[in-house]
Each structure stands twice: as structure tokens, then as C-alpha cells.
């Protein structure tokens, strides 16, 4: 016999068509079992999406604020005492090549109160500090009311309040008198938020000259802020201690406030494991639902299987039909879940004023996961369908 028998292959489009036909015949059941997958995928996408959106917001904030701000503060002496920064520190820092701007604050040992009747112990957690006039430029902050200290007001009993300090004192307008160091000062300005220097938000700021004249300030800065070009931040960081205090560079601490924000961004990017686990469990349950649907489908469709075998379908072709059906079923759930999860993310982000970010890899991962589930859930039912003997399948009534 020279003639050869070999079954022809099903075109991929035919495999899909045959698989989809099985689903179309039972729409309700298909929707319900796809829903199981959809819930799992939606949960995972939403968890990833929401944390990515929060992270994106922090990163954008970081971008806006810049990462080129460094702060210098006194460390400790060899004997564990609090060190001091030299009074010449700020002009020295300004002389470093890449530095655009440098300014300083200095702690003053006094308190700020609404009136002289309030006991001195009630500080409200507000620190009184002397500030150089360049501080607002260095911090890229702005005043919401009134004006920042200038060459005139830094010599007068005038005070600018940080946003948080103003709130704690209950001051919402300028021109108000406050009690500082046994005399009245006038509020000339209120600052906006300072995300990179939250300590300024909680401060009452006066000029260096008036602080030395009226509040017993010794002129030593307690914190120096400086900005340089982004590329030179690390270089500047290295030279700062020796510039600020050439005699005792080890008594100087340099830090980068944007590092804290970056750390928060990194933490926000780490997903809430518990919620992700919950989504995974939902996905697992959804997969069991798909497997269950497929087993029932095979039981109900013995006659169809018998017919297809009589039409010339090989075992492999029956197997691939049910695998395709299972894959389509869970892929349907996956797509619906990805859409639902993205919508949930968008809704949350919109309500919180965050940018909506659904990482493409999360969508890709979700689709991949549903395909894996589809295959796993479909293997057993498909094997059962393929193993069914044609005569048994056809004799079922």
C-alpha cells in the first residue's frame, strides 16, 4: 500500500473558532466562571496600580523639588558634645564652584507665643530660628501671605512664620504681634509648604542681625542649605565638611533631604503583600472554577466529542479544542479583570489627585497568569475528552 494516511493539522484560526464555539453555546456559565478569574486579576492589577500611582506621585514631586539640595548640620565633637558650625561657614560654602546658592538657619534659645500671658513652657513645638535672606531662594519656597525677610526687615523685630507654625499659633494674616524673647515682634509673612525642609514649616524665622541684637543669638548657623548643579552634588557633598569647618571636618554632617522622599517612593513601590496574596487566592479560586466548568463541559459534550471523532478529529485535536476553550475562558476573565483593575486604579487615583499609572508589566503578567491558569485548568478536562472512546461518546444519549 503506497497511500499514506496522515491527519491534517488544524489551522490556529480553526482551533480558536472551535474553542470559542464551545463557549458561545453556554454564555451564562462562561461569564460566571470568567468572573472568578476577573476578580483575581482585577485585585492584583488594582493593588499594583494604586501603589505605582502613589509612587509616581512621589517621584514627580521629587522631580519638581530637585535632588540637588544638601544640608549641613553640626555633628558631635570627639568628646560627644554638640559641635558648632563656624560663623563663616555660609560664605565659605558659597565659594565652592558648583554651588548656586547657600543659606543658613540658626537656632535661637527662645520661644514664640501669641501674648505675654501665655506661659513660656507652651512652645507649641515651634522653634525660633534666625535665617539668612537667601533661604527662600535656596529652598525654592514661596510665601503665601506677606513678604519674606529682606535687608530691611532682617534688622527689625519682624518674623516670618512657617506654614505649620502659623497654623499652630492660629495666625492667618500678617501684621499680627507675637511675643518673642520678652518683646513684641510683628508677623510680616507666612510661608507655603516646604516638602524638602519640614523643619522650616515648624519654625518662626527672624533675620540674623535682629536675632543677634535682641534675642541673644550667637551667630553660629545650626543648619546650612545649599544647591548646586545636579551632576556635582556628590562632589560638593565630599568637599562640604572641609569647606565648612576646615579644622574639624569630622564634626560636620551632610545630608540630602530628597533621599527621604526617594526612600518613601521606593517603599510605595513595594506592594502590599497581603493584598497581592488575596488577589492570588482569588485567582486560584477562579482557576478552580474554570477547571470545574471545563470538566462539566466535557461530560455534557460527549456526543459532540464522538461526532468530531467520527468526522476525523484525532485525540490531539479534541485535546487542543478543549485546551483552547479553557484558555479563551480564562483569557476572557483576564482581560475583563485587567480592565476592571485599571478602572479601579484610575478611580482611586482620580479621587486622591494622583497620576494614574498601571505598569505594562502588570498587565502583561496578568495576561500571562491567566494563560497559565487556562492551560492548567484545561489539561485534565482536555485529556479526559481526548481519551473518550468514540463509540462510548456516540452511544451516550
Amino acid at each position, binding site marked *: 500500500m503506497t497511500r499514506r494516511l496522515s491527519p491534517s493539522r488544524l489551522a490556529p484560526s480553526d482551533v480558536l473558532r472551535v474553542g470559542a464555539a464551545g463557549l458561545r453555546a453556554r454564555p451564562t456559565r462562561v461569564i460566571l466562571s470568567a468572573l472568578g478569574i476577573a476578580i483575581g486579576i482585577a485585585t492584583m492589577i488594582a493593588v499594583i496600580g494604586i501603589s505605582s500611582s502613589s509612587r509616581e506621585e512621589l517621584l514627580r514631586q521629587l522631580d519638581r523639588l530637585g535632588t540637588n539640595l544638601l544640608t549641613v548640620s553640626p555633628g558631635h565633637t570627639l568628646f560627644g558634645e554638640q559641635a558648632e558650625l563656624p560663623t563663616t561657614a555660609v560664605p565659605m560654602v558659597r565659594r565652592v564652584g558648583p554651588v548656586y546658592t547657600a543659606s543658613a538657619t540658626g537656632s535661637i534659645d527662645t520661644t514664640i507665643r501669641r501674648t505675654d500671658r501665655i506661659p513660656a513652657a507652651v512652645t507649641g513645638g515651634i522653634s525660633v530660628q534666625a535665617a539668612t535672606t537667601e533661604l527662600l531662594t535656596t529652598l525654592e519656597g514661596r510665601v503665601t501671605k506677606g513678604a519674606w525677610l529682606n535687608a530691611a526687615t532682617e534688622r527689625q523685630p519682624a518674623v516670618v512664620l512657617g506654614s505649620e507654625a502659623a497654623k499652630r499659633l492660629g495666625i492667618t494674616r500678617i501684621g499680627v504681634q507675637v511675643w518673642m524673647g520678652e518683646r513684641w515682634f510683628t508677623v510680616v509673612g507666612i510661608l507655603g509648604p516646604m516638602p524638602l525642609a519640614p523643619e522650616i514649616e515648624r519654625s518662626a524665622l527672624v533675620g540674623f542681625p535682629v536675632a543677634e541684637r535682641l534675642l541673644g543669638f550667637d551667630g553660629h548657623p545650626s543648619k546650612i542649605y545649599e544647591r548646586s548643579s545636579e551632576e556635582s552634588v556628590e562632589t560638593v557633598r565630599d568637599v562640604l565638611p572641609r569647606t565648612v569647618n576646615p579644622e574639624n571636618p569630622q564634626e560636620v554632617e551632610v545630608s540630602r533631604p530628597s533621599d527621604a522622599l526617594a526612600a518613601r517612593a521606593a517603599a510605595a513601590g513595594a506592594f502590599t503583600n497581603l493584598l497581592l496574596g488575596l488577589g492570588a487566592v482569588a485567582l486560584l479560586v477562579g482557576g478552580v472554577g474554570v477547571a470545574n466548568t471545563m470538566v462539566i463541559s466535557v461530560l455534557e459534550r460527549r456526543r459532540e466529542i464522538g461526532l468530531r471523532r467520527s468526522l476525523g478529529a484525532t485525540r490531539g*485535536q479534541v485535546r487542543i479544542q478543549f485546551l483552547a476553550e479553557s484558555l479563551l475562558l480564562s483569557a476572557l476573565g483576564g482581560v475583563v479583570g485587567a480592565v476592571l483593575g485599571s478602572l479601579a486604579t484610575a478611580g482611586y487615583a482620580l479621587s486622591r489627585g494622583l497620576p494614574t499609572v498601571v505598569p505594562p508589566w502588570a498587565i502583561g503578567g496578568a495576561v500571562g497568569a491567566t494563560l497559565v491558569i487556562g492551560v492548567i485548568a484545561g489539561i485534565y478536562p482536555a485529556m479526559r475528552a481526548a481519551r473518550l472512546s468514540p463509540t462510548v461518546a456516540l452511544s451516550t444519549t
Partner: protein
Amino acid sequence: MSVPYVVELRGVTKVYAGDVQALRGVDLTVAGGELLAIVGPSGSGKSTMLHMIGTLDRPTSGTVRIDGFDVAGLSDRELSALRGRSLGFVFQQFHLAPGVSALDNVAEGLLYTGTPRRERRERAAAALERVGLGHRLAHKPHQLSGGEQQRVAVARAVAGDPPLLLADEPTGNLDSAAGAEVLSVLRDLHAAGTTIAVITHDAEIAEWCPRRVRVRDGRIVDDAGNGADPPAGVPGRAGSTADAADQADGSADVPGRTGSAADVPGRAERAAADITGSRT
């Protein structure tokens, strides 16, 4: 012709689990172009014979050759390919996919033959035309009468022009008028050259077939008639006597016949002989 017989059974036995002897040594040959009935009461083994001829199952012993291929030497994949290209099945339950048009139901019959989809649909339309349903291509099964549904099933079975059409109680679920409709289609197909084996317990249908193979207790007890002759008039159908009279001369018994390719007339002759057919 390199294939003398479409069906060749030699000493075929089939024993099911529990020592049930369904077939006890069956010899049968069917030549191309024959129309035969395999007839017997339930439990006689005729369904098992259908499974043997349809390559849906393998014999316990003996040889089954379909379209020249020895079934024993074929793998499951090869058997499937054989069914796909050499056999067409018509079942008592029509086994049509609900909610799918007649055209697509028929086209599904060619799915496993490697025919591209467009051609499947073209050939399906042609097959539906052949069974007289050219005007019902887009109808869903529930929009068709029982006879029409079975004709769709027949179209599906013959869409790929298989050398052998196996009809298992094709009229079992139909009233006599619808049954006559289906038999008339089978007769036309036979006239056009298709080899048809009808498995039935209905003596009337058996009488209608030019060749009758009677099965009882797993053995062939009688094999009468010349399968190549045109069939008698359609049973249960008014006005069929004229057809019967026209064709009576060709239905003489040939006892003890085991089939012979030599006496199969050419297609043209048979088609001409059937011009008097009652299908309108």
C-alpha cells in the same frame, strides 16, 4: 482500480468486557457504488458492525479493511485521518450544533480534512444543494424540520465526497414522511455514485435497499440483493410505486454474494437510471 472493496471484513469477531460476544466471525465485502442495508434486531451486533466498518473501534480478531487500509495496522491518528477522508457518518440523533447555521454545521464536517475555511463553506453549500437544502443555508437547526435536520447531517457526511457513507438508523427519529425525504436523498446520492451502508432494524427500509445483509447473534445470516441496483421506491411515501416499478427489474437477488467490483455500473448509467427519481 487499486482498491477492490470499500469495505472488507474477514472473520471479524468482537468480544466486549464480561465475555459478551457481539460479533462471532463476520465476512462482508462492499464494492464501490453499492447501497446496502445491515439489518437486524437490537442486540444482533449490527451496531458493533457499524463501529467496525466506521473504524470507531477495533475488532478482537479478524481483518477490517476500509478503503484499502487494514485498520489493525493504523495508529489512532491514522484512523482519524481515515475517518476524515474515507467515511461519512449519519446518526439517528442528527448531532447538529445548536445555534449554528446549516452551512456552518456542514462545513464543520470538513474541518479535519485540512480544507481551508472558505473552501469548506463553498463545498458545504454545494453539499446542501445536493440534499435539496440550497435555500436553507443560513437556517439554524431549530428552524428546520426533523427531515431537514437529518438532510443537513447527510450533507455534512458527504461534503467531503467520502468513498463510504454510513447511516445509523437515519430515519429512526423521524416520522414516515420525513424519513422518506431522507431516504430519497440517500437514493439520489447512491445514484450519483456514493457507496452507502444503512444500519437499521426497520424491515421496510431494508427492503428498500437493493442489497440486504441480515445480522443475528453476531453473525450474518443472509446477504441478498445486488447493492449496485437502484433502490426500490421510497417506503411510506405515497406515489412511490411508480418508482418501484421502474426499478424492479434491477433488484433481482444474487444469493451468497460476497461483492464484486466488476458488476458496479458506471456513474453516468446509474445517474441516468435515476432521472425518474421522485425528488422535486
